[in-house]
């Protein structure tokens, strides 16, 4: 029986909260007091981290590649922006509505992604984002078109904390939302539902053969991911008091993919760490070479991917060497 207990404990072990995680989140608050002048940059990082986290849920855990995740970010940003413009400036209400609107679009479009290869999924997600971009562009009377949304009035968070010029409230607010949604995502990926997602991603044929309805799991995670991306967009709208067509732009979908790949796919901290690296690098490089910073980001990305690729290759070579050494004939 003690054997059984330990098996049970071992199953739970990987979901255990580690002290390094506490340290990470404590540090994320402390940086504000060490570098108070960087608060706006930090809040940008928190929002990018949340956006990348939402992409990781579908890419890293669900195995759905997307080049159009900005669709949900943008929809969330416009939802929160429009509310603030029309007198509904409560930030949390804005987040809730943004999440719902983005979730609806995510749910509707998820059915287009159930079948098909990675390539079709890339094209479908890209296409949907392009359509939404064009739609926002055409509906200039509502969205402000290329000029952006004018006259947003965002109220204080919880009716208590007004947004200040230095971005202190913005950062703590974004960080708190990131933290809560991180905890939720963490809970989900370690749950049985999360395990079933891994199964669907790993072998969809077998997943079906043990009674998993792959479609319903993918629809669920895609909808959730869209909602979280929508919240990230809403945070961006509320903290910068600015929404323009840029929130739906293709580069945003590409950036978030870059961020996730830099930080690591299939690991919830990957998106956040990628966001830290990407945004700091962007900030720093833009200071030195304002025109060429993307070159350096590109270089870093290529190096990262090649190093990762190499490691896989050596691992593979050592395994094949072992196998052929044992089996004699190769």
């Amino acid at each position, binding site marked *: 029986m003690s054997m059984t207990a330990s*098996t049970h404990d071992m199953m739970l072990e990987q979901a255990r909260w580690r002290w390094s995680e506490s340290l990470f989140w404590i540090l994320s608050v402390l940086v504000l007091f060490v570098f108070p002048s960087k608060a706006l940059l930090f809040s940008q990082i928190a929002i990018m981290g949340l956006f990348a986290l939402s992409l990781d849920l579908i890419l890293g855990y669900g195995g759905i590649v997307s080049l159009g995740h900005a669709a949900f970010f943008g929809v969330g940003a416009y939802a929160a922006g429009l509310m603030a413009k029309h007198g509904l400036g409560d930030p949390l209400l804005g987040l809730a509505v943004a999440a719902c609107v983005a979730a609806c679009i995510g749910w509707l479009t998820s059915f287009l992604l159930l079948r098909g290869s990675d390539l079709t999924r890339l094209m479908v997600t890209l296409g949907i984002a392009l359509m939404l971009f064009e739609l926002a562009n055409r509906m200039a009377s509502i969205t402000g078109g290329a000029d952006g949304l004018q006259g947003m009035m965002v109220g204080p968070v919880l009716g208590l904390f007004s947004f200040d010029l230095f971005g202190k409230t913005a950062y703590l607010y974004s960080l708190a939302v990131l933290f809560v949604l991180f905890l939720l995502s963490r809970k989900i990926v370690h749950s*049985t539902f999360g395990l079933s997602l*891994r*199964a669907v991603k*790993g*072998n969809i044929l*077998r997943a079906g053969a043990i*009674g998993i309805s792959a479609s319903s799991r993918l629809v669920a995670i895609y909808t959730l991911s869209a909602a979280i991306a929508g919240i990230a967009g809403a945070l961006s709208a509320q903290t910068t008091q600015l929404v323009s067509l840029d929130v739906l732009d293709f580069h945003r979908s590409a950036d978030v993919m870059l961020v996730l790949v830099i930080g690591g796919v299939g690991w919830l901290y990957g998106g956040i760490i990628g966001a830290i690296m990407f945004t700091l690098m962007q900030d720093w490089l833009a200071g030195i070479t304002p025109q060429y910073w993307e070159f350096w980001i590109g270089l870093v990305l290529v190096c990262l991917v090649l190093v990762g690729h190499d490691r896989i290759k050596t691992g593979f070579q050592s395994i094949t060497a072992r196998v052929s050494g044992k089996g004699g004939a190769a």
Partner: protein
Amino acid sequence: MSIALATHELVKNFGGLRATDHVSLTIHTGARHALIGPNGAGKTTLINLLTGVLTPSQGTIMLEGTNITRLSQHARVQRGLVRTFQINQLFADMSPLQSLCLAVSERHQQGRDWWHVAGSNKSFVDEAEDILTRFGLSDVMMQQTRFLPYGKQRLLEIALAIACKPRVLLLDEPAAGVPEEERHEIIDILADLPKDVTVVLIEHDMDLVFSFADRISVLVNGALLTEGGVDEIARDPQVRAVYLGESGHE
């Protein structure tokens, strides 16, 4: 005797190729039914049709009196129609314990539970561990499946199906690729399957088929050639010509 699984005039065309040709098959509850036939006869295709991986071009499939022809793969599993694969289909980056726990949770309709940590239901873990122990996999249950030796993966392939508590179990060449000296593990497991579970076995090893099955269907070019008791089939000159002759040169 009640009928567990039946097909009526089942047809599957792949373009111009008819892989399943008007197959009408009846399998009684609790049967040990072997399905034999040369390579390319359409045995795996038939399993794919029965389990919903493929949609038939024509014909119907009945499971315990219910028409399941249009049901999804997972809905059939929930009704107790479970299979294994000729080529391992496992969760390579999960451990056997995780794979089994997941299968057990799904069977209890808990696969959508997004709140509790996977494995927090102790009775599911116990059940998973039980099966793993029975299959001699308890010493490797925490390892990543991709690193298990082939023989262990083959056992896990069957263990995963057992975790779904099948009423009708379809085994597609369970001993395929397993070296002679490890075959007995698989044979023992087949012999130990509960008597009320209906088993359909596809297998090339004639000794295994003759010792395990009480009834044999012979499939050739997608169509049923003949069907009968073990002795009947062993004596059938047609079968010897088509199948036993062919398997001789393997």
